[in-house]
């Protein structure tokens, strides 16, 4: 992310964690209905929103429910009658929503959800990794992964812009690291006047449930048309890329911050590139500086957009590099390459006709910290292994006793 000091909209500097940044964005988007069930580390988002409603800062309905399954179902209903809606969750909560995730996207409702990512049980872990998010990659939700509180704020606004676009009408997820970001305070800029945000988010017409113009939503469809209806989602998800780029341009114009589907740091002249996502991108950039001081031509990449997957952006950035290292924070058990983003990256680059040496690392599982030294050692390990790295599959970084032939 680049920040321009001058922006069209007057802004004020605040200190927030990513949970609160999400809540402020929801407030500024003038959301009508919120429903959520508390789960660590997401709780701060809805606590802050409850506070805002109680203080009269936000005129919204907060629906208290008995589970995440109900939370998502409640906002599906509210969205179906035309409300702008929001929910937030983590980990088991997201898993519990799973079947409803498909219903939300299949009904083409523009919901927005924040996810403070967290490891999955069992064993129980409240700490961060991205196993929860990666498990929902095929649910047809547009998915952003933020790396700063500023980006969480901006991405929530952007998510409403994209989801509510009549060309798209798919729900969006804005994900960020549980604890590493959800509970870490950072400075960010937010507009002084909420009206400027609402100008970016005009209420646009779509099909809604209205007694004066009755329609049926959530109908049953036989094999003769079901596939065409699901294919509409395939096309909408592809089209979302273009609409996201338009929204990026509007964010830049109004708020002065520049976002790309794949962010990069010193990538231009790099022979070695390290791709990751979420809050550890900052650590990776420091590691890149360390490695550069040792004379290695290393650069950093960060996947901001997970769905739709930005294959061409990745291709453009990776084109001149010899080695690509992908650092995942989730495990796809039994996959040929167990890092989900590594797996997707290999498929995307193959599609684009690019075959760099690739190494897949999995790190940070269950909240284990990933330091600058870890990144530096991963780069060295990848260089040492060369072509052999991918034959191994994914390297489970730092696991005691893990051996690779």
């Amino acid at each position, binding site marked *: 992310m680049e920040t321009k000091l001058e922006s069209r909209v007057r802004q004020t500097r605040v200190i927030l964690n990513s949970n609160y940044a999400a809540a402020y964005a929801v407030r500024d988007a003038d959301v009508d209905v919120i429903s959520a069930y508390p789960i660590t580390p997401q709780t701060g988002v809805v606590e802050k929103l409850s506070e805002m409603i109680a203080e009269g800062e936000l005129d919204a309905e907060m629906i208290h429910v008995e589970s995440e399954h109900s939370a998502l179902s409640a906002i599906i209903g509210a969205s179906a009658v035309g409300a702008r809606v929001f929910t937030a969750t983590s980990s088991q909560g997201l898993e519990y929503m799973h079947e409803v995730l498909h219903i939300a996207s299949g*009904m083409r409702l523009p919901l927005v959800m924040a996810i403070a990512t967290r490891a999955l049980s069992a064993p129980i872990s409240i700490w961060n990794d991205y196993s929860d998010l990666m498990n929902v990659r095929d649910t047809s939700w547009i998915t952003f992964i933020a790396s700063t509180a500023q980006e969480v704020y901006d991405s929530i606004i952007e998510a409403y812009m994209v989801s509510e676009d009549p060309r798209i*009408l798919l729900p969006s997820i804005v994900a960020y690291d549980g604890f590493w970001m959800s509970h870490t305070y950072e400075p960010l800029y937010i507009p002084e006047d909420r009206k400027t945000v609402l100008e970016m988010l005009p209420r646009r017409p779509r*099909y809604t449930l209205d007694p004066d113009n009755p329609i*049926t939503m*959530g109908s049953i469809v036989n094999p003769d*048309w079901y596939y*065409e209806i699901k294919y*509409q989602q395939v*096309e909408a998800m592809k089209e979302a890329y273009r609409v996201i780029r338009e929204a990026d341009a509007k964010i830049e114009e109004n708020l002065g911050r520049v976002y790309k589907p794949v962010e990069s740091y010193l990538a231009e002249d790099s022979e070695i590139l390290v791709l990751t996502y979420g809050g550890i991108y900052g650590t990776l950039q420091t590691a890149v500086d360390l490695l550069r001081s040792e004379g290695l031509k290393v650069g950093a990449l960060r996947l901001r957009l997970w769905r739709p997957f930005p294959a061409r952006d990745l291709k453009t950035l990776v084109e001149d590099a010899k080695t690509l290292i992908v650092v995942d924070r989730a495990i796809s058990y039994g996959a040929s390459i167990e890092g989900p983003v590594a797996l997707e990256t290999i498929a995307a680059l193959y599609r684009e006709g690019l075959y760099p040496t690739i190494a897949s690392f999995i790190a940070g599982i269950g909240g284990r910290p990933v330091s600058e030294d870890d990144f530096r050692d991963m780069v060295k390990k990848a260089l040492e292994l060369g072509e052999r790295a991918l034959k191994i599959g994914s390297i489970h970084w730092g696991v005691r006793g893990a051996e690779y032939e």
Partner: protein
Amino acid sequence: MSWRELPIGGIILEAGNSVKRKTGDWRVLRPVIDQERCVRCYICWMYCPDGVIEIRDTPYRTKAGRIWNITFEIDYDYCKGCGICAQECPVKAIELVEEVK
């Protein structure tokens, strides 16, 4: 028609279109009302989940000479044969007959 013209998300834009879908062919058991035994209590009409019990203004005279001013009839175009009417009938006037033997 292709995916482009189809309303998104399987939305049905036309209200009241369920009349076009005749669900009577789902039926395995056909409820048949015995007009002799029926006491016109409205219980089947009340319980029917599909609203296919119709009240007709046709008078009916029983063999014993009793005259009823109304007759209950089943709309077999939409009756799915769930059997709730037969189950609830207090005088056992509704029999479930197999559609195909």
